[in-house]
């Protein structure tokens, strides 16, 4: 499977979750694991460009596919991805645990709706839970991300 542009061997254990494979085998620990049943959204990654829950996929299913994690959004030292930059500017994160999942979901949202309405923003982030920042600043960050992405 290709992860952030680099080819990797598929795991030998067919029972390995994609989320565990990314974190434990590839050491890409930016993908977080919260609930392990698809509710919290922390483990969201891009699978062939569309956001999915990595805890609800087996790693072997990603063979032959392209996976992008939060580490693939911007190289070390390079400018942040517009969605990351917007979360930074708008204080869209506090503890940061949910943030990688939010960023990946918002990338998907903006691909679907480049200029999202307030309702589309709410629906787009409804599948991600935040327990400290509060959604008001995250909403602002999504609108800002849409602006930054146009530039």
């Amino acid at each position, binding site marked *: 499977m290709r992860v952030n542009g680099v080819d990797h061997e598929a795991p030998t254990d067919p029972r390995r*979750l994609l989320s565990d494979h990314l974190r434990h085998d590839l050491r890409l620990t930016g993908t977080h694991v919260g609930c*392990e*049943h*698809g509710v919290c*959204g922390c483990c*969201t990654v891009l*699978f062939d460009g*569309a*956001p*999915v*829950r990595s*805890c*609800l*996929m*087996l790693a*072997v*299913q990603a063979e032959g596919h392209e996976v992008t994690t939060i580490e693939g959004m911007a190289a070390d030292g390079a400018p942040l991805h517009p969605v990351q930059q917007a979360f930074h500017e708008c204080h869209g994160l506090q503890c940061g645990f949910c943030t990688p999942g939010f960023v990946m*979901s918002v990338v*998907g*949202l903006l691909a*679907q709706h480049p200029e999202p309405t307030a309702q589309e923003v*709410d*629906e*787009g982030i*409804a*599948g991600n839970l935040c327990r400290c920042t509060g959604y008001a600043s995250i909403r602002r960050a999504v609108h800002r991300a849409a602006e930054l992405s146009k530039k």
Partner: protein
Amino acid sequence: MLAGGQSLMPLLNFRLARPAHLIDINRIGGLDRIYERDGGVAVQALARHAGVEDSDLVARVCPLLRDAVRLVAHRVIRNRGTVCGSIAHSDPASELPAVLLALGGHVVARSSGGERRITADQLFTGMFETSIGPDELLVEAWFPRSPFPSAIYEESRRHGDFALAGVVRAGDRLALFGVAATPVLADPSDPGRGLQPSSDPEASPDFRLHLVRTLTEKAFAA
């Protein structure tokens, strides 16, 4: 049988399901089409919820199906989850089995012995149970053209959660979900008759019946 995995993988993660064998059908080619058939829409086993949600064909022929899919979880889940998977999983609180029942659709089950059609009223046999055999694969669900007016309404604690109760109107027909072990057809003039919904910390039986009556009124006011 693993397609989108958005219901089965949580069961595996919680060790609630421990199957001896798991068959992933995702690499089977030509099983992800959404196409017009017999005046309705056929949705194949690997067609994702998101694909159905965005389909111009579904919007034109069966907008009720599109409206229902939008109530299934969240877009990120719908990117992976499948319509046929929702039906085969047959969660009593799930929208799509009730839509299939309200519309009078069917599924196509295939085994090494051949194919057979199972109509919606013969499909849902119990909670999380269908009449699809252990040697069969649900390859396609067929939804008739949705009549006018059609509507789906549900009440849930949070957007994207499983519904406490919900109603599907397809013309004069009414199907309910979340109030019995399977989706059920009901009389629009007395939708709660004969029902004994379950009680849980989310909602009492009386509250579920109240929701059914209120949502039915709303659906038939349109």
